[in-house]
C-alpha cells in the first residue's frame, strides 16, 4: 500500500475545464515531478465541486484547503509553498465575501457548502470519476451487491417505495410506484432507460452527476434492471456533453471489466448491460415518449399517453425510465435505508434536490439542499445574494416549463407541491435569479421563444399556439401592445395547457402565466404607458445625457453610430433617432451622466 501524505484534487467538470483546469493538471504534474514530490503527493482529477463561479477550483487534502480561480502560474506557488513547505498560499484561498477577513480553509467552513446536504452529489469533487476503485471505496456497488445476493426484486421496489423518492426530472412521480408498475407487467424483455437529455437553459445538474460520479448512475440502473426484470439499459445523453459521455464510456468499460455489468453479475444469474445513445440536441427528446422514439432511430416526437412506458415503452416493450439525479439517489437509499432518506426533506418531498444556480447571483454553481429549504436560504446564504448591491426581483425555477417566483413568495419551502401551488414547478433544477434590471415581460418572451424553437411541431396547440403567444409578446416588448393582449395571452395559455400532446406544450405557457400573475403591472406599463419599468426593452427607452456631464467626449468617441454630438467641456446631446441603444456610452461614462429613460 502506498500512502500519499497529500492529495491535490483538480476539478474536471465542464465549468472548470472551460476555464483551464486541464492546463492546471499538466502544470501540477510537471511541478510535482520537478520538486520530487510525486511520490508524496497524489494528483486527482475529479468531478464538479459545485462552485463553478470560483473556478478553476483546486482542493488540497488533508487540510481541505479550497483554492479558487487558480491560474497556471499559481500552480508553481502552490507546489513550492504549500506542497513543499506546508504553507497555505493564503491569497489564493477562496473566501466568502462576508467573511472577507476570515479566510475559508476547510470545505465545510465555506458558507456555500455549510447549508448543503449532498446525497446525489456526494462523490462529485471527492473521487476520481474515471477510477472505479475510488467509487467502490466509498461504498460503490455495495447496494447492487446486496440487492442481488440478499434481496428479492420486490424487496428492492418496496424500499424505494418506502423512501418516498420522487422523480427528479421535474414531474415528481413516485419512483417506487413507477418501478412497481413496470415490474408488474409480464414480459421476457424489458428496458431501463436513464434520461440524461438535460435541456433546460441554465441547468447542468445531470451533467455534473455524470461527470463526477458516473458509476452511481450505472449501479442504480443495474439495480433497477434487477428490480423490474430488465437486462438492458440505455443512457440517452446529450451530444453537447462530451466530458460526461467520455466518462460514461470509461465507466461502462470498467464496470464490464469488473463484471459489474454484463452477464452473470457478481456470479449471480442476473445479467445487465448498458448502452449510450447520443441526443442530437432537440429539447423535446427530454420528454420520455419522444426520447424512446429517438432511441428507436426515429425522429424524436412524443406519442399520446396511455399507453405508458411501463407497459409499452421502448420498442413497444415494458420500460422504466428515470432521470439521472433520481438514479443517483438509489444506491444511497438502499445502503442507508428508507428511513434515512425520509429523515431529510419534507413529508411529501423527502430527500434532497440539486439546483443549478445561475443568473444574477454571486455564487453561480451547483448546490444540493434538503427539500423544504426556503428559496431565500438558497439564494442568499448559499448563493451569496445579488451582485452589485442590486435589488432581487424574482427567481425562475423549472426552466421553460416553470415560472417566476416574486420576492413576496421567496420564503416558500422548496418542494414539489408548494412550488406547483404558486404557479411554478420544481422542474429538473434550473434556478435563474433575476434582479431589478430584468424585464419580466422579456423573460417570459425569452422562454417562450425557446419553446417555439424547440416545439417538434407534431400537435397544433404547441406548434401554432405558442407561436401566436410569442407574437403577442414580441409586440408588447416593441411597444405595440394593445388593450386585451393580456386576456388573449391567458386564454391561449389555457387552451394550450389543456390540449397539447406532451409536457413540453402543456407547460410552455407557465412562464407567461406566472409573470402575468405576479408582475401584471409590468405588462400593463408596457402596453398602456409604452414604458419598460426595468429599462430593458430597447424599443421602449431612450438614452439621455444629464447635467452631470462634464463634456469629456468619452461617449462621443465610443458611439459606433455617431449619435452623440457636442463640444469638449460642454454637455453632450444624444440624437435619439440615430441611437441604437448599445449602451457603450453608459459603460464608458466616468460621471454616470447617461441614463435610460
Amino acid at each position, binding site marked *: 500500500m502506498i500512502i500519499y501524505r497529500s492529495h491535490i*484534487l483538480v476539478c474536471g467538470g465542464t465549468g472548470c475545464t472551460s476555464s483551464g483546469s486541464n492546463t492546471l493538471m499538466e502544470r501540477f504534474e510537471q511541478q510535482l515531478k520537478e520538486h520530487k514530490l510525486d511520490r*508524496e503527493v497524489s494528483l486527482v482529477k475529479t468531478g464538479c465541486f459545485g462552485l463553478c463561479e470560483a473556478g478553476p477550483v483546486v482542493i488540497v487534502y*488533508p487540510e481541505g484547503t479550497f483554492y479558487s480561480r487558480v491560474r497556471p502560474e499559481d500552480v508553481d506557488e502552490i507546489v513550492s509553498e504549500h506542497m513543499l513547505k*506546508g504553507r497555505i498560499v493564503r491569497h489564493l484561498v477562496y473566501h466568502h465575501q462576508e467573511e472577507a477577513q476570515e479566510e475559508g480553509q476547510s*470545505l465545510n467552513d465555506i458558507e456555500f457548502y455549510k447549508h448543503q446536504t449532498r446525497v446525489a452529489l456526494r462523490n462529485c469533487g471527492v473521487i476520481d470519476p474515471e477510477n472505479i476503485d475510488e467509487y467502490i*471505496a466509498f461504498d460503490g456497488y455495495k447496494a447492487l451487491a446486496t440487492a442481488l445476493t440478499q434481496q428479492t426484486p420486490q424487496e428492492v421496489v418496496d424500499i424505494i417505495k418506502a423512501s418516498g423518492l420522487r422523480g427528479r426530472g421535474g414531474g415528481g412521480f413516485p419512483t417506487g410506484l413507477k418501478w412497481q408498475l413496470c415490474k408488474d407487467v409480464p414480459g421476457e424483455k424489458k428496458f431501463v432507460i436513464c434520461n440524461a437529455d438535460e435541456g433546460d437553459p441554465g441547468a447542468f445538474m445531470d451533467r455534473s452527476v455524470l461527470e463526477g460520479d458516473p458509476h452511481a448512475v450505472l449501479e442504480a440502473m443495474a439495480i433497477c434492471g434487477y428490480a423490474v426484470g430488465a437486462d438492458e439499459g440505455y443512457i440517452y445523453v446529450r451530444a453537447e456533453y462530451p466530458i460526461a459521455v467520455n466518462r460514461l464510456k470509461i465507466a461502462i468499460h470498467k464496470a464490464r471489466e469488473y463484471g459489474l455489468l454484463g452477464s*452473470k453479475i457478481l456470479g449471480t444469474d442476473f445479467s445487465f448491460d448498458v448502452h449510450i445513445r447520443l441526443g442530437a440536441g432537440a429539447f423535446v427528446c427530454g420528454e420520455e415518449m419522444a426520447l424512446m422514439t429517438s432511441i428507436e432511430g426515429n425522429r424524436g416526437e412524443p406519442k399520446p399517453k396511455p399507453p405508458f412506458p411501463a407497459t409499452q415503452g421502448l420498442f413497444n416493450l415494458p420500460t422504466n425510465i428515470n432521470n439521472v439525479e433520481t438514479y443517483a439517489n438509489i444506491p444511497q437509499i438502499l445502503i442507508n435505508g428508507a428511513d434515512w432518506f425520509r429523515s431529510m426533506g419534507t413529508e411529501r418531498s423527502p430527500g434532497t434536490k440539486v439546483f443549478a444556480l445561475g443568473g444574477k447571483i454571486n455564487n453561480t454553481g451547483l448546490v444540493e439542499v434538503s427539500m423544504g429549504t426556503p428559496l431565500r436560504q438558497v439564494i442568499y446564504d448559499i448563493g451569496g445574494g445579488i451582485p452589485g448591491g442590486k435589488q432581487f426581483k424574482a427567481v425562475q425555477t423549472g426552466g421553460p416549463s416553470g415560472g417566476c417566483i416574486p420576492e413576496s413568495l421567496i420564503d416558500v419551502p422548496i418542494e414539489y407541491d408548494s412550488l406547483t401551488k404558486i404557479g411554478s414547478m420544481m422542474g429538473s433544477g434550473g434556478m435563474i435569479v433575476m434582479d431589478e434590471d430584468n424585464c419580466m415581460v422579456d423573460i417570459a418572451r425569452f422562454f417562450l421563444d425557446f419553446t417555439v424553437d424547440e416545439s417538434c411541431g407534431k400537435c397544433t396547440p404547441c406548434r401554432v399556439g405558442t407561436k401566436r403567444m410569442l407574437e403577442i409578446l414580441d409586440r408588447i416588448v416593441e411597444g405595440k401592445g394593445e388593450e386585451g393582449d393580456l386576456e388573449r395571452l391567458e386564454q391561449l395559455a389555457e387552451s394550450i395547457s389543456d390540449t397539447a400532446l406532451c409536457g413540453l406544450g402543456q407547460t410552455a405557457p407557465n412562464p407567461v402565466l406566472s409573470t402575468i400573475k405576479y408582475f401584471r403591472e409590468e405588462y400593463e406599463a408596457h402596453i398602456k404607458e409604452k414604458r419598460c419599468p426595468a429599462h430593458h426593452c430597447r424599443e421602449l427607452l431612450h438614452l439621455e445625457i444629464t447635467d452631470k456631464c462634464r463634456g469629456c467626449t468619452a461617449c462621443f468617441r465610443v458611439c459606433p453610430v455617431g449619435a452623440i454630438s457636442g463640444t469638449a467641456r460642454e454637455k453632450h446631446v444624444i440624437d435619439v433617432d440615430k441611437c441604437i441603444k448599445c449602451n457603450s456610452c453608459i459603460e464608458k461614462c466616468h460621471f454616470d451622466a447617461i441614463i435610460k429613460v
Partner: protein
Amino acid sequence: MKSLAELEQIRKQTLERINLRREDKGSEVRVVVGMATCGIAAGARNVMMAFMTEASKRKLSHVTISQTGCIGTCRFEPMADVFIPGQDKVTYVNLDERKAARIVSEHIVNGNPVKEFTITNQDLAQEKGNAQ
C-alpha cells in the same frame, strides 16, 4: 468476474489510499512535520519520508502526515508534532529517520510517547548543559 469478497477487498484497499479526503476526521492521528527552510535544511524531508514509509508499511490509513511552517525554535529542527484524538499534543525534536520510525511504532501504534525525543527533556538537558 468479481465476487463479493473481491469487491470488499477493493473497497478496503482503495479507502486506505483515499481516506485522506473524508471530511469527518474524528479518529484521525496527525503527524505534522516542520518543513520551513530551517527544517528542510536540518533534514525534515527525510524525516517526513520516514514517517510516510513507516505508516505505509504498517498500513496505518488513519494517520495523516502533513507539514507546517517554522514555529520559531529552529535549533531543535527537524521537529514534528503528533496529535492523537483525546490526548495532549506531543512535540518531538531533533529527529532523524530512525527516530521517526520509533515514534510510529511506540507512540502511534502502541500509545507510548517516546519521552526521550520530546522537547521538554531535550530542552532541560540543554539548559543543564549550559549551566554547567
